[in-house]
């Protein structure tokens, strides 16, 4: 008697990447709600405030523009890292992304130091502008730092291309989250 064994379904090679991407998207959805809550709080507080300082009153536009361009370029380099076929090229793009992330964080640190020690200091508990500025940029900065840790881990260790793709997805989101911060804090006209 001959019996035919039904073929065992085998997961497609892309399944792992799909699961990783799905998990990251679910995380990004919850994270977007966190950013969204902060943006809404900022919008409400700014709208209801009797007065709100202009962007140029406290913040320096030129360093922020450099930080923004560094983050934009890093979004490109991390996409190249995710696309790179060879591990050497991937590590190179990851290193470039990490350096750009460090430039961004360094710029943010310098901005905090300048704001805290200036003639008209901006501190967390001093006024609504300072509170919302530090809350949003600090929350975003923590995301950049976490992404940087993942990039460095990917550079140092033998990270698979699929993992880099998930990290790239996160980094692109971090880039996206910076855009409204830059616009609302550094560019938006005062009332």
């Amino acid at each position, binding site marked *: 008697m001959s019996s035919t064994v039904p073929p065992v379904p085998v*997961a*497609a090679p*892309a*399944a792992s*990447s*799909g*699961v990783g*991407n*799905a998990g990251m*998207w*679910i995380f*990004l*959805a919850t994270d*977007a*709600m966190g*950013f*969204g*809550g902060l*943006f*809404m709080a*900022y*919008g*409400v507080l*700014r*709208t209801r405030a009797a007065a*709100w300082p202009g*962007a140029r009153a406290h913040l320096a*536009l030129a360093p922020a*523009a450099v930080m*923004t*361009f560094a983050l*934009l*370029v890093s*979004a*490109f380099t991390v*996409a*190249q890292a*995710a*696309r790179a076929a060879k591990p050497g090229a991937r590590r190179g793009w990851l290193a470039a992304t990490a350096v750009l992330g460090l430039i961004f964080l360094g710029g943010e640190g310098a901005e905090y130091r300048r704001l805290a020690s200036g003639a008209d200091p901006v501190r967390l508990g001093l006024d609504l502008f300072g509170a919302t500025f530090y809350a949003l940029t600090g929350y975003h900065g923590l995301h950049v730092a976490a992404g940087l840790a993942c990039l460095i881990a990917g550079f140092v260790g033998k990270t698979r*291309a699929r993992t880099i*793709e998930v990290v*790239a*997805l996160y980094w*692109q*989101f971090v*880039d*996206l989250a910076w*855009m*409204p911060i*830059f*616009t*609302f804090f*550094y*560019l*938006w*006209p*005062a*009332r």
Partner: protein
Amino acid sequence: MITGVHQPLAAGRPRSAWAGFAVLAALTAAELAVATSSASARARATALGGLLIAKAGVVLGACLRVSWRRASPRLALAALAIATGFAVVLMLEAVFQVRLG
């Protein structure tokens, strides 16, 4: 098996990455030009709002390669769109001093 929730980044062509980056850089430069221009606050706020939406669209479409047909990105997009939309509306309201009721 969970299929990919977005088109994998690796599937994109390098040319599209370059194009996306170039457009983002151009939009950011336009933002800086608008912010430092001598136009009225209303005109600047409107232009900046439009440029921000355009930039977000480029990142979502060209960099994150999201598709509205898939569930997980849709969830993230809905959260982002609602939050950013609220923030933009509230601040446009502040700039234009519109009061309802």
